């Protein structure tokens, strides 16, 4: 009935900073299989705040995959929404938080996805302080898990919070 969502899958992080690059690595894995889908775009980004908001303009739904540092086991994959725990990159110290940037964009009339249609696939990182092109083993092992999570997110017509538990199973 409804047209398929105009969806962006975005890998966020610094591609040469160990586990911080996991968003980029996940997108590299999944980009090939998403390339054939007419309504899904894939990109990478290393800036939070206004820059990140600007990347989302024009999309109905955005899936951001990024490293997160919390108390969880390295490699744990979670699905979050804006307003929940931010990852390192969603907030840029040099401009605004993602929340403020989205509000700013909406105020000036930019076409942006609703908060419920912005999904963060967050991979718990172990080391985001050492320059390296490789993730640590636990995070490396989580890359296919995160890719599978993105597939499940994309297969849902909604990404509302009550549907999130299913996405991780």
């Amino acid at each position, binding site marked *: 009935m409804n047209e398929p969502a105009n969806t962006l899958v975005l890998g966020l992080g*610094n*591609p040469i900073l160990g586990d911080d690059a996991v968003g980029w690595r996940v997108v590299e894995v999944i980009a090939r299989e998403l390339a054939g889908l007419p309504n899904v775009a894939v990109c990478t980004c290393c800036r939070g705040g*206004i820059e990140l908001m600007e990347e989302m303009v024009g999309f109905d739904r955005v899936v951001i995959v990024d490293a997160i540092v919390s108390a969880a086991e390295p490699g744990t994959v979670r699905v979050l929404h804006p307003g929940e725990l931010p990852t390192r990159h969603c907030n840029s*110290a*040099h*401009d605004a938080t993602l929340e403020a940037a989205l509000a700013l964009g909406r105020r000036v009339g930019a076409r942006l996805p609703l908060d419920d249609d912005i999904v963060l696939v967050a991979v718990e990182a172990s080391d985001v*302080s050492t*320059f390296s092109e490789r993730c640590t083993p636990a995070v490396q092992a989580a890359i296919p898990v995160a890719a599978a999570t993105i597939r499940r997110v994309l297969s849902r017509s909604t990404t509302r919070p009550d549907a999130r538990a299913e996405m991780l199973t």
Partner: protein
Amino acid sequence: MGTITIDPVTRLEGHATIDIFLDDAGSVQNAYLQVPELRGFESFCVGRPAEDMPNLTSRICGVCPEAHHMAATKALDALFGVDPPPTAKKLRELFYSIFFVTDHTTHFYALGGPDFVMGPDAPPAKRNILGVIEKVGMEVAGRVLNMRKVGHGLIQAIGGRRVHPNWGLPGGVSKGIDEKLRQEIELRGEEAIEFARFSLGLFDDIVLGNERYVELVKSEGYTHRTYDMGTVDAHDKVNFYDGQIRVVGPSGKQLCKYEPADYRDHIAEHVESWSYLKFPYLRAVGWRGFVDGAESGVYKATPLSRLNASAGMATPRAQVEYERLYETLGGRPVHSTLATHWARLVELLYAAERWVELARDPEITGKDWRKLPTATPREGVGSVEAPRGTLTHHYRTDERGILTHVNLIVGTTNNNAPINLSIKKAAQAVIEKGRPVTEPLLNMVEMAFRAYDPCFACATHSLPGRMPLVVNLRSPDGAILSTLSRQ
């Protein structure tokens, strides 16, 4: 008595802790800013081809990749002993001017501006770009976002990618521009000039039109009489892309002027056990601790420093604004940290004017944009003015051009000692015995270093992202009396 800790520092990169040590009487004795360290960037680079550096160093963080790209590219010129043709140099400076407009715009409206536009007493939830827009109007928001969009679009058109250019090569650049793109760049540059003038007008209305803010800017708590550093052209005018490094003393008298490649003859680095970040100082003056004055080798490298270290701006409208700044604040040099925001807007106008000048240069569409290097590489230093201060890249390689040594002195590192001075002085000005330490007071402390637009992402090789700030209020023995933090 105690220590104050601020966590998080809103609107700053990475994460940091400010420790404020009180003496037995409850007055501020010392204040230190600590930032976390990212490890291994030099060893990550060693063993790679030097030509990778413009792309690698621009990945250190997401805030000013264009500055690293340009400093690295210039270091490769020196490393390979090749002087780029005039068209290449002008294209690089054009690209760099557009980047400066974009970066300074973002800082003023999103990071530094809210302190003035909303006022230091405003709650943190209001002291952001949304609060600014609420106060100055939606039309301004559209102009800010449009200026960013124009800047990023042209950076991509010239430099190949939107954020991380892959354009700079030893001896020049990988491609030039055609007449159609030149016309677009010129047209957009004229808009940028208008935007910069509009922003200066806004500063006039909101800051200079408010006696309380002017007093705050001039107040002793936000004043440091240090040396100032900046890159100048042959006429001692401010230049972001190329020139000599000029250092002037607290009275404005020139201490030295040198080629960037000679930086080690003039700059030494002090180390403190409590900080991962080093403290550069002027070798000729020496390290005397965290103090200002002509006897202390502490120097600043900020937009205001660049103005102080120069004889003026090389473009007409920016020169008028330069003169107005000094007339208003009592002559050159100005040592009021908060005037850095004003200096940033003068630079914004200069960058926009230079953008148009270069777009109109007959050589800018020339086809000779690269000179192939033929010399055997050994050692090279490249330097530019990053928005946050003088940025120096220094590489050594073997005869095949494989890196054996990498050293970066980034904008914020130059300012590490003055940032600590500023925090201490601001804390001393606002924290008094028996007076409760409140959120607005802590913001006054934060304002002291926000003026530097510090980016610890590459200063410590640290992360892009939000910088949480913790302020610990500590007793003389180091025990934490209270902690304030923000999420």
